[in-house]
């Protein structure tokens, strides 16, 4: 009797073991800056924490990883340590990731903000410009001087796209508005970015928006008693008196979706560019100074964009020189958006 049962018993144990002790899926994240910066990497790390909360998934990360050889080594190290999924969240990780992806075909790679794919490597980004359009509407409604200031990092398509969307949003509620752009050539440098904001305030801007990871511009706006629009995460804590709203990242749902698809085997290595429709981007709660009718208009537009009824870059759109670049009724393609290298009319600044 015992002898007959033993194999069965062992089999049962084995089955039990494989369900109870199934290997956790290991997910690694590579960040370009420290996660404590309240900015870009912080937002990604909030997404990681959402993945960490999933059953059967463990996560870890390496922060402050320089683009180039350092990032290649970090990703290689993760792959060797049997990580199943690797997210790299900065543009400069693209080519290193492609190299590592070729060496580890069984690991799934996801790269943020680039454009290269492989069989086991997808790229993804969020349509933060949709949120920027909405914040532009708020800024346009609140300005008195009709001069908005925009402290921007680098003249690359991602940033240019955001400035253009912000400008179009502001013009949609206040046609004469101008947006003044200052480049800091930094992603995270609180002092420089605050100074840049001050220079915009000096020329009469009364709303400061930013494409930076530090809350420096928010503080500058609050000190002068004017309004500000944040970025990355809800920046109201840094300037409660001036903060109107922020264009924010919400990576959690997307990261969970990707990991779940990989576990289920339904994942595809393609380009994911989700927007308000997937909740990957959003605007932070309005500050108490934003009038209710403005809030209503903005939220109505948000619903329109999320449902696909309205596209941010719908013609007619003119460039700075007044030449019509997008005909009335036409919509810019994703390809054009990804390579955006001109400013729309109403932006004051150069692309250098």
């Amino acid at each position, binding site marked *: 009797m015992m002898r007959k049962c033993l194999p069965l018993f062992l089999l049962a144990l084995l089955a039990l073991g494989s369900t109870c002790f199934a290997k956790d899926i290991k997910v*690694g994240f590579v960040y370009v800056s*420290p996660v*404590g910066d309240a900015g870009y990497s912080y937002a990604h790390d909030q997404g990681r924490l959402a993945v960490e909360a999933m059953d059967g998934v463990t996560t*870890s*990360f*390496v*922060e*402050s*990883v*320089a*683009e*180039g*050889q*350092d990032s290649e*080594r*970090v990703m*290689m*190290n*993760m792959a*060797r*340590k049997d990580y199943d999924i690797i997210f790299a969240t900065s*543009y*400069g990780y693209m*080519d290193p990731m492609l190299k590592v992806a070729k060496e580890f075909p069984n690991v799934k790679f996801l790269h943020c903000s680039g*454009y290269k794919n492989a069989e086991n490597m997808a790229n993804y980004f969020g349509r933060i410009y949709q949120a920027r359009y909405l914040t532009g509407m708020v800024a346009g409604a609140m300005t008195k001087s009709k001069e908005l200031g925009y402290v921007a990092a*680098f*003249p*690359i*398509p991602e940033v*240019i796209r955001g400035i253009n969307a912000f400008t179009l949003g502001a013009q949609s509620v206040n046609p004469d508005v101008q947006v003044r752009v200052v480049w800091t*050539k930094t992603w995270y440098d609180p002092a420089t970015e605050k100074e840049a904001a001050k220079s915009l305030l000096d020329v009469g801007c009364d709303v400061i928006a930013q494409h930076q990871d530090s809350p420096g511009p928010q503080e500058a706006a609050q000190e002068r008693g004017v309004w500000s629009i944040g970025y990355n995460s809800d920046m109201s804590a840094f300037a409660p008196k001036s903060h109107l709203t922020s264009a924010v990242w919400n990576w959690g749902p997307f990261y969970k979706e990707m990991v779940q698809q990989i576990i289920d085997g339904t994942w595809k290595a393609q380009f994911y560019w989700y927007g308000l429709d997937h909740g990957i981007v959003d605007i932070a709660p309005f500050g108490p100074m934003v009038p209710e009718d403005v809030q209503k208009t903005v939220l109505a537009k948000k619903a329109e964009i999320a449902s696909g009824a309205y596209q941010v870059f719908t013609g007619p759109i003119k460039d700075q020189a007044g030449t019509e670049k997008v005909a009335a009724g036409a919509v810019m393609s994703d390809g054009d958006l*990804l*390579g*955006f*290298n001109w400013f729309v009319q109403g932006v004051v600044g150069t692309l*250098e």
Partner: protein
Amino acid sequence: MPAFSAVRRQEPLGWGSCLVFFAALGLAFLVSGTLLAIQGKPALTGLWLLVESAFGSRHALEDCLIKAVPIFLCSLGVGLTFRLQIWNIGAEGQFALGAVGATWAALTFPTWPWYALLPIMLLCASVAGGLWGAIPAVLRLKLRANEIIVSLMLNYVGILILEFLVYGVWKDPGSFGFPMTSEFAPAAVVARIAGTRLNWGLLLCLAIGVLMTVFLRSTRLGYELRACGENVRAARYARMPYAFLVILVMAVSGALAGWAGFLEASAILGRLQPSIMSGYGYTAIVVAWLANLNPLIIAVASFLLAGLRVGMETLQLDLQVPAAFGGIMEGFILLAVLAGGFFSRYRLQMRRAG
């Protein structure tokens, strides 16, 4: 209470200074371990993990060697100027110019075969980096401008030149507006040593390391360099070519940093982009001091520092220690080793009362 006074050693400490070095290292590790424990991380496991992930496998050793190459080249050059009591803080800018020089060659002669192109790239990197290094030397000699300030300021200028080029005329049209040159032709890429992840730049380091040791120990100019460093007045009185030496060491130092820029652009990135600047030029100052300006020890120190940085990444990944901890630990090690240097030169003597 016994009082101590420091007395300069008459004889060099010899192997004893090795002991001092390891004691200092041990102390730095002790402090780091304590810091880990304060964060609620396992201290001993953490330190072991750091060492093991830096030096404990073939992969790890390869990673350390790759990372050590640019640190070594920059440190070797910086160390050479320090010997002469000339303070080159500008390796960062010379590195940038070297990368720019090599990239110019790679983009200008893309169809050349590797045996012609790579030497030209190396030459251009040496000339660009060397000239950049010679500027503070000439200004010091002609205008008595402080070379520390000039070389430091030229860092910013050098990096801006690099950015100007990759944001402007050299920008790859296919990069969606991102600042980077197009990928180099395969002939412009320093090849990997077969069967490893290392590239042949390592051989270049080996050769220049040996050459530098021989130069300093066994040539007349090397002797004069060391003599000028000890006492400029006496050396000048002996008609040693001080001005020539100043320009020479600054140019060589710049050229070596330029080599590092060339290897990073060619072998590691395969193109020029702003993220090539990782602060190796500043790290070099630390390494040169740690190594007491000795070429062999510079090589060891570069390797160890590279190991520390590589190991820190694993420490982050496995224990989720913040990245800043690596910087803190690096600082402690430097502080402890430099403070330990005091005991190599002085000994403590108990002062008797009365």
